[in-house]
């Protein structure tokens, strides 16, 4: 009864306050916008229903994230209001039990929160069914979609968060402590789960919000049809996660219940009984009347009230503010706990795919920084903390009860405002310093001594700190203006959500419109800060001017005294608008206008301004206008002759070139369609070697039509001469194009060069975009059986390429082809490249102060162009390139070129590489990818290089389903064989063991079979493993012969492009009939073998040999594309292996005694093998040919035990 009364009172009390309704409104609007814009936009390549369970779940996750950050006041107020208001002596002495009191309050908070979270579902429903959505985007109404999202995500989140917020607030007696509870959960979800533990799969388990398992896991592993139809299920990791957090929440509640006392709260631990007693017994005067006393002896000291004392006040308040934060729990979390965890995060991140990365300062810094608006970065935890601290500072005096005293002190409002800002700024500066120390500590632990302190200071203090300071000022101003703490938090957090998420959703892209926004900066060792700092600084100055204006507003409306209504404060503001304040405001306004004008001049006049939707519209319009020319005959490019002048300092490039075009069709061609570059690239002259008139010139969409006076007869050749001029002036809204910079220029032909014919790659891809612009649907990849991709390769085996590239005297320019000659002329250095065999249509150009590492393989010149300081990778790359050439030329046919270039270009700290004909390029991460180079450890970069080399033999493949497998899958199979041939079986097994892990490609047990592969998992994992298994069954010679024949068939001029069907035909040809069922299982359907050895025993025979008996179990299942699992009977050869003791340092499978095929049926069976020596290990499919997917415990092999 009392419980109900408490519950009802609390519910009614908070229900009458303003803030729950604000929270409700915010959640409603947020979910609406998220559904309307976010969910639609994020499904870039996908096409699922707006109201699919997946979309609903995703919005629910983000909604509950927002709820977590803004609505902690509900639980906090329920738990701590009595203490905070000083009511507790009255309530604590009521005849109410702890269970009734705490239970009623907690339940009321929980119910309120659960009701609040309904706003998310309401917002989603509203977004879907309110007018403005196309009917095709909406699937059938399914209540289960909303119910599961609410029940599996929102409700558990509400319970967990309310419990933790409530516990902290009850414990501290301060409602604001609940925000710390929110922060803790936020921190777990974003910082701990995201960064530290992701690799161990614990991340998903530890994420209390659902960001990991909805936004990360399901987004990547669900197919499009699943995203449309599949319901969220409470099982597996999701279930464990929910149970784990419910358990933690119950634990927190139990602790709160046990520790809670209806007792007086002492305020300070520094409270000393002794002195208190002395005070109580202070002498009592004999006479209680007022008596004359000694005159007051307070000295009359001089006082000043000028500018200097205001500065002193500001500093004193700043220092006091800093101390308050730095000694609070949240402050310690920021200044100590987060930097300490950061050490672990940095250490964890200094590895890629199993091999360590050298922790250079640039790389460590990339882990320590993020733009404010990076909503999925781990540093997204900082802005909510800033908001929290800002609130604490603004409310510090009033919450201590000192508000009236301090408000009646002399001095302008500038002192507290600036003082608090400086105090918060000091906290952030110390935080940056702590991060610096954390980064260096991580470097020391990894044995890296080269700290580059200057770079640390520049990046953390010079670039990251201002980002935080701008937001800190905004948070302070919001709290000052709103003047209601909970609502202040709400508004400030929503301001952050606006900056990070909503602005983009609402289509506000211009950095002049989103507070604190601006183009990013980047630092690489090759490029340095490049030209990025200028634009960054202009935008930051512009926003600093705004911040100044905001500060003036906050100063004018600074609440002082008892009355804080807006009317009163506006009235006061009039008095406060003194001459100096007016000057400051005026200066800020002038700065905003000048800086904004300058930026506008750069982004709109010097550079064309195009929003995202402008760009999509332009692409759509291109397709609408010129798609009809796609299939008309056009001459093919067969050769180039280029003169490329790179001016790194001027950020300019001039290109003069001529193309040789051949009419390869059977019809005469009377007009030439030339696609010209768009966006800041000037295509100056286009001429032909016969008379042509320009009949259409569409500058905006980059399409020109030239009518030939005399049509081009079939087989005839036409020359096209052109001039392209690129000069980067000023900066755009997105900053500076990094293509041409002082050191480390890189650009490709695709964006700048003119090409003949309709350019299909300019078409919009996303189904949503295409629908929005009224374009025909276009699948990402055409169906395997679609004729479209099967047409003959459009070029007869590629083009011949010739170019002279000029650059600054101290730089080296790289282009496709072999270097013929280099010379210096007029203070510039020239490089003449030409090809010895045809190459593709995409050409990359580089220019930098390169070091060149040269080597040879037979008559092939190998050149590695690298940043002079990046040398750790050179020998490994050379080894791998030579081993690859050895193997591939022998197995797949000759290498067509006389040269190979490996080029480093700036940026991209990742370890990825890109292969084009005779050229492999990589970012600055690759050189620092340094395996331990010790016996028994995997050299993964070597294998990656071999993979890139395999692309030199990649077929011209059709862009249809299965293409990713033909390209990446075959290249990885080839790399495996190179590793085996050059480094031995042991190294291959290490490579395979590594690739069997579920990272970075989590397994997918459904979807398309290999022949129709689309997904990276199929391309990079299942494909190579299927090829490898086949090569072990039928012999790698046979498989390689099939591949060689495939290459020969499709690589010649005019040959049709290859598909997986061609590959499959060749593979069938080399596979004996007995193994054709296996071939079918591997390629035509999704087959999974589950093989297990239960027991392996051995007995020595009289002859001295050993008889090994294995109890094995086998199961084979097939998944269809919808994920339906069917068990199929199994009866096929599977290797059974028995192994002796391995030598010191060698792998456990290095001493095979007997590995042979045995026929294995479904179910349990016993197999007997006789071996000459004592066995140690035995099992089914020991090399994981069929049952290859990595699991926690490898159950294929068992230790052999003594006889039964």
């Amino acid at each position, binding site marked *: 009864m009392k419980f109900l009364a408490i519950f009802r009172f609390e519910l009614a009390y908070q229900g009458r306050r303003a803030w729950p309704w604000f929270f409700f409104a915010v959640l409603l609007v947020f979910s609406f916008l998220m559904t309307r814009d976010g969910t639609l936009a994020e499904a870039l390549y996908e096409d699922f229903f707006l109201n699919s369970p997946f979309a609903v779940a995703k919005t629910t996750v983000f909604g509950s994230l927002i709820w977590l950050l803004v609505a902690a006041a509900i639980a906090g107020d329920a738990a701590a209001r009595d203490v905070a208001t000083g009511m507790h002596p009255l309530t604590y002495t009521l005849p109410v039990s702890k269970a009734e009191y705490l239970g009623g309050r907690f339940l009321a908070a929980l119910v309120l929160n659960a009701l609040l979270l309904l706003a998310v579902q309401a917002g989603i429903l509203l977004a879907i069914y309110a007018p403005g959505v196309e009917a095709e985007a909406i699937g059938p109404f399914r209540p289960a979609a909303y119910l599961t999202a609410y029940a599996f995500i929102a409700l558990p989140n509400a319970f967990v968060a309310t419990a933790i917020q409530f516990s902290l607030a009850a414990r501290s007696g301060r409602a604001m402590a609940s925000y710390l509870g929110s922060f803790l959960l936020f921190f777990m979800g974003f910082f701990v789960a995201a960064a530290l533990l992701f690799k161990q799969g614990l991340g998903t388990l530890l994420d209390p919000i659902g960001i990991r398992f909805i936004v990360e896991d399901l987004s990547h592993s669900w197919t499009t049809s699943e995203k449309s139809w599949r319901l969220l299920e409470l099982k597996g990791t999701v279930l464990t996660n929910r149970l784990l957090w419910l358990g933690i929440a119950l634990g927190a509640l139990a602790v709160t219940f046990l520790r809670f006392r209806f007792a007086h709260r*002492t*305020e*300070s631990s*520094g*409270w*000393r009984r002794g*002195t*208190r007693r*002395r*005070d*109580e017994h*202070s*002498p*009592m*005067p004999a006479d*209680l*009347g*007022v*008596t*004359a*006393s000694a*005159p*007051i*002896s*307070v*000295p*009359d*000291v*001089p*006082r*000043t*009230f000028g500018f*200097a*004392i205001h500065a*002193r*006040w500001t500093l*004193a308040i700043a220092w*006091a503010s800093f101390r308050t934060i730095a*000694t609070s729990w949240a402050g310690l979390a920021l200044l100590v706990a987060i930097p300490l965890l950061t050490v672990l995060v940095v250490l964890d991140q200094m590895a890629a795919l199993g091999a360590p990365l050298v922790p250079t300062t640039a790389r460590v810094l990339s882990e320590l920084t993020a733009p404010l608006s990076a909503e999925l970065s781990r540093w997204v935890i900082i802005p909510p903390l800033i908001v929290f601290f800002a609130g604490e500072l603004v409310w*510090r005096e009033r919450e*201590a*009860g*000192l508000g*009236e*005293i*301090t*408000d*009646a*002190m*002399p*001095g*302008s409002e500038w002192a507290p405002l600036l003082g608090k800002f400086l105090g918060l700024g000091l906290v952030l500066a110390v935080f940056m310093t702590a991060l610096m120390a954390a980064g260096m500590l991580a470097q020391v632990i990894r044995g890296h001594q080269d700290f580059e302190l200057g770079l640390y200071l520049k990046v953390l203090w010079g670039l990251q700190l201002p980002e935080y300071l701008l937001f800190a000022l905004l948070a302070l101003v919001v709290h000052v203006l709103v003047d209601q703490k909970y609502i202040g938090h709400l508004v400030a957090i929503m301001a952050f959500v606006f900056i990070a998420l909503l602005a983009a959703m609402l289509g506000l892209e211009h950095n002049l419109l989103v507070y604190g926004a601006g183009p990013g900066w980047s630092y690489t060792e090759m490029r340095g800060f490049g030209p990025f700092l200028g634009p960054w600084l202009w935008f930051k100055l512009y926003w600093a001017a705004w911040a100044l204006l905001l500060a003036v507003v906050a100063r004018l409306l600074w609440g*002082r*005294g*008892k*009355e804080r*209504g807006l009317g*009163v404060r506006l*009235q006061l503001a009039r*008095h406060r608008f003194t001459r100096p304040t007016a000057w400051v405001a005026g200066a800020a306004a002038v700065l905003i206008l000048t800086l904004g004008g300058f930026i506008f001049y750069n982004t709109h006049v010097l550079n064309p301004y195009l929003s995202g939707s402008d760009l999509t519209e332009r692409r759509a319009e291109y397709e609408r206008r010129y798609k009809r020319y796609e299939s008309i005959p056009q001459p093919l490019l067969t050769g180039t002759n280029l003169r490329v002048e790179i001016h790194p300092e001027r950020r300019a490039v001039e290109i003069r070139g001529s193309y040789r075009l051949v009419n390869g069709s059977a019809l005469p061609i009377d007009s030439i369609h030339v696609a010209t570059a768009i966006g800041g690239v000037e295509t100056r002259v286009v001429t032909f070697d016969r008379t042509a008139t320009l009949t259409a010139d569409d500058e905006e969409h980059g399409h020109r039509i030239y009518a030939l006076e005399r049509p081009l007869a079939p087989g005839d050749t036409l020359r096209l001469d052109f001039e392209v001029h690129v000069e980067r002036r000023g900066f755009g809204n997105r900053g500076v194009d990094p293509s041409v910079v002082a050191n480390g220029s890189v650009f490709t032909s695709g964006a700048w060069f003119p090409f003949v014919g309709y350019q299909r790659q300019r078409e919009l891809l996303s189904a949503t975009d295409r629908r929005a612009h009224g374009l025909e649907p276009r699948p990402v990849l055409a169906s395997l059986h679609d004729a479209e991709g099967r047409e003959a390769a459009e070029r007869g085996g590629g083009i011949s390429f010739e170019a002279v590239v000029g650059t600054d005297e101290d730089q080296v320019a790289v282009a496709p082809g072999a270097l013929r000659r280099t010379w210096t002329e007029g203070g510039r250095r020239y490089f003449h490249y030409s090809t010895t065999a045809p190459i593709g249509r995409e050409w990359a150009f580089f220019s930098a102060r390169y070091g060149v590492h040269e080597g040879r393989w037979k008559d092939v010149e190998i050149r590695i162009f690298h940043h002079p300081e990046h040398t750790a990778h050179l020998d490994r790359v050379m080894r791998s390139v030579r081993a690859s050439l050895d193997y591939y030329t022998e197995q797949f046919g000759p290498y067509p070129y006389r040269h190979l270039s490996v080029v480093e270009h700036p940026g991209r700290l990742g370890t990825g590489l890109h292969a084009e004909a005779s050229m492999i390029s990589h970012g600055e991460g690759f050189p620092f990818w340094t395996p331990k180079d010790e016996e028994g450890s995997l050299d993964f970069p070597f294998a990656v290089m071999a993979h890139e080399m395999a692309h030199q033999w990649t077929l011209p493949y059709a862009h249809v389903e299965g293409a990713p497998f033909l390209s990446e899958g075959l290249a990885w199979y080839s790399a495996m064989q190179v590793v085996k041939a050059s480094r031995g079986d042991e190294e291959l097994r290490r490579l395979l063991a590594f690739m069997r892990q579920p990272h970075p490609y989590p397994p997918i047990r459904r979807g398309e079979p290999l022949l129709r592969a689309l997904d990276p998992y199929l391309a990079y994992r299942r494909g190579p493993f299927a090829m490898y298994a086949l090569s072990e069954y039928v012999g790698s010679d046979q498989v390689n012969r099939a591949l060689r024949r495939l290459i020969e068939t499709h690589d010649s001029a005019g040959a049709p492009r290859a598909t997986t069907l061609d590959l499959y035909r060749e593979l069938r040809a080399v596979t004996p009939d007995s193994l054709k069922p296996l071939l079918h299982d591997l390629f035509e359907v999704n087959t999974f073998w589950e093989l297990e050895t239960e027991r392996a025993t051995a007995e020595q025979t009289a002859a001295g040999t050993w008889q090994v008996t294995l109890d094995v179990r086998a199961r084979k299942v097939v998944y269809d594309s919808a994920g339906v699992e069917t068990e199929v009977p199994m009866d096929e050869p599977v290797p059974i292996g028995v192994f002796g003791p391995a030598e010191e340092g060698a792998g456990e499978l290095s001493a095979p005694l007997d590995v042979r095929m045995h026929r294995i049926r479904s179910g349990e069976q016993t197999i007997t093998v006789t071996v000459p020596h004592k066995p140690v290990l035995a099992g089914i499919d020991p090399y994981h040919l069929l049952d290859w997917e990595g699991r926690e415990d490898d159950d294929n092999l068992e230790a052999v035990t003594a006889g039964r």
Partner: protein
Amino acid sequence: MELHLRGVSKTYPNGVRALKDVTLTIPAGMYGLLGPNGAGKSTLMRILSTLQEPDAGSIRLGDIDALKQKDDVRKTLGYLPQEFGVYPKVSAEELLEHFALLKGIAERRARKDVVEALLRQVNLWEVRKQKLGGYSGGMRQRFGVAVALLGNPKLLIVDEPTAGLDPAERVRFLNLLSELGENSVVLLSTHIVEDVSELCTRMAIIDQGEILLEAEPLCAVAGLSGRIWRRILSKHELPAVEREHSVISTKLLAGRTVVHVFSDAAPGPGFEPATPDLEDVYFSTMAGHIGRRREQPQPEAAP
């Protein structure tokens, strides 16, 4: 320096008229503002301390327009609010020094001296290193006094300062105030009549936002001479007496009821003339026998 209030009015958004056309002149010295709870004392005090805006009226402190030149008022203001808190984790000395700086005492040495003198004055010197969170209510109040006294204020406003003090502390505090009253305006609001009678040279009685009486305590008491009558009676006689006479106060004395009656002439048998004191002035004013309320058509609630 004198404090002049002209026609100060204040109505709260919820309709409560806290001050109605208050006009007062407050000279240097101790000035008592006496009134029941909710009379508008605190509103008036806060307006004088620059923390609240009146709807109408003007306030001048010497040459300063206190409503416009707030900062000038603040420079010379000492304010002890009715209720205040402290930062629990800071020591008294530290916080007082912080406030001393805020009061414009820039020079470090001077600040130290002032802080020491004040802490000694309010008897907190011994416990100056203690965190304020451990202070008792009285210690906290004395700390507040020290803050109010910083910078030798010319205008000292103390809002019900003696409410939380034990008798000894109260005496010491009032002593302190009377010292200061020698050359500053000290405005003391209280509902304890003794505070005023013991200290103040001038006083005003305020109720429901109106100044009912502005007087010197001694003159006011003298003015009542011969008009206050006293009778000791039993409880059941009280209603009859209240019906027939203008009873201004009743109180218990050793189980019997003592009534004071205002009357220009002897009210009748059983009554004896009483020597008036300030309490009689207060109750007579509240009951409308003297002061502003007498001039109004219908006297409002009697005590």
